[in-house]
């Protein structure tokens, strides 16, 4: 699929933490069934931007957000938005694997349960499908009732992906999902992401530029709260238009 359909678009998005202007006029479009990577030095606002997309920034005290983010044409900052519905549609995987201190099964079933699914066989199906979707089923199918905390870091992160998939989101936000993992686990998750974009729209924050080149269709380069450059990944890394992008990807700063 080469045509780009817009799934999420943000226009003139500004975010302030108190008096700190953390995002400045961010205009960006995420395309359906594509992986978009956000790169940039620490503190450039890429994670902050990611969290504005499912309104997790609402939980930060003294935060002020201006502008709009359209999800399938609906502004997610509209007064009428129910954030629980929004977050059901836009799943998130965090930097540190954060499974709940309960069984593997209960972790994956958590989302469907809070959204009202009680039927045991239905839950069984969702759990199996989600774990398969996160390429974890083979490894854990025999110990679903064991604590999720007994899994390795890489497995825990794939469990968190499965947990996010279980509520059937349309968009998956990933905040440096492999930064706490070893290279082999990282590889597994990167392979997985390629499969995920078949069904989902994916946005990923990464510190690792090689990772962006390996997996992302589009890449946005953030610097002090602004998007310096946003282009198809190969273009951004081979013929960057902005001098600052070139400096960053060649390792001259950051």
């Amino acid at each position, binding site marked *: 699929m080469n045509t780009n359909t817009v799934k999420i678009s943000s226009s003139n998005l500004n975010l302030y933490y108190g008096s700190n202007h953390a995002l400045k006029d961010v205009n960006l479009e995420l395309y359906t069934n594509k992986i978009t990577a956000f790169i940039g030095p620490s503190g450039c606002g890429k994670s902050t931007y990611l969290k504005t997309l499912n309104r997790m920034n609402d939980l930060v005290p003294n935060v002020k957000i201006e502008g709009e983010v359209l999800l399938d044409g609906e502004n997610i900052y509209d007064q009428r938005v129910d954030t*629980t519905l929004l977050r059901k549609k836009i799943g998130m995987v965090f930097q540190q694997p954060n499974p709940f201190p309960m069984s593997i099964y209960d972790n994956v079933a*958590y989302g469907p349960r*809070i959204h009202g699914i009680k039927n045991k066989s239905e839950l069984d199906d969702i759990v199996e499908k989600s774990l398969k979707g996160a390429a974890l089923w083979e490894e854990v199918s025999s110990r679903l009732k064991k604590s999720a905390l007994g899994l390795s870091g890489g497995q825990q992160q794939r469990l968190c992906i499965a947990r996010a998939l279980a509520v059937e989101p349309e968009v998956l936000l990933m905040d440096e999902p492999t930064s706490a993992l070893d290279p082999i686990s990282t590889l597994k998750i990167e392979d997985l992401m390629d499969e995920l974009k078949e069904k989902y729209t994916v946005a990923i924050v990464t510190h690792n530029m090689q990772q962006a080149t390996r997996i992302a269709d589009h890449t946005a380069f953030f610097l002090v709260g602004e998007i310096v450059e946003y282009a198809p990944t190969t273009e951004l890394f081979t013929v960057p238009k902005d001098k600052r992008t070139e400096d960053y990807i060649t390792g001259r700063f950051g």
Partner: protein
Amino acid sequence: MQPKTYSIFSGHGSKSGIERAAEVIFTICGFFAVLAVASISLYMLISGTPALFKVGILDILFGSTWMPTAASPSFGILYVILTSIIGTAMAILIGVPVGVMTAVFLAEVAPPKLTKIVRPAVELLAGIPSVIYGLLGILVLNPLMYKLELKIFAGSTTHQFTGGANLISAVLVLSLMILPTVINISETALRSVPQHLRSASLALGGTQIQTIFHVVIPAAKSGIVTAVVLGTGRAIGEAMAISLVSGSSVNIPLPFNSVRFLTTAIVSEMSYSSGLHKQVLFTIGLILFAFIMIINISLNNILKKGDAQHD
């Protein structure tokens, strides 16, 4: 080459006198606590067991007639034991949900400004002497209970009127008294639940309330159980306040009966008892002591299990 400045040998060996003295003092202090516990245990055993055998273990524990000063005295404390167990259990049933909900309010829901008012109030509650709780019970609870009693048992010929000094009053006072313990320990446990678990639940579309009940409280479970156990210990060991509001006569622990707890039995009779009667009171103390020990041991087991889970 550096010149030799001073020798590292000293006249007093590897440690100075002050170091040694401090070690000795700390060791003595440590042993003092052990000594106190050991001697109390020993003393309770020595003074509490003779009556058990003189009267008969079954007669004491399962006898329901308490007439220690009659011509042919009877020392059955079944009702007293039952009162302590039922009274404590009911106080826990009321106090724990209220306490845990208050802790949830403080740790999860309350805006910081409100927390600043509620938390000092809870801490103050913990500092109020228990006799004051008793006075409050006499002033507020007992008259209320008496009105209820008059209504419920109007025209009854079998009910012995208590003036409101009954099991319910004692239970309510006890549940109020365990609140600070339950609230403080539960709140600490809730606050120690990592933020990323809350984020995970919210990011899945969970509401704040769902997150609290399905993630935060289960994650704080071992801390909350600790709170319940310590609350139980506080309730079962309390004497002063409930001796004022419970009427203190030995009866079946029914809501509107005047009742006597293990603790209040000792408090109210020790001053005039003698001989076997006095020995039985020590046996009551021993039973109370056994209850407290069981509670503490189960607490230790819970804490150990909690630690094992984290490994």
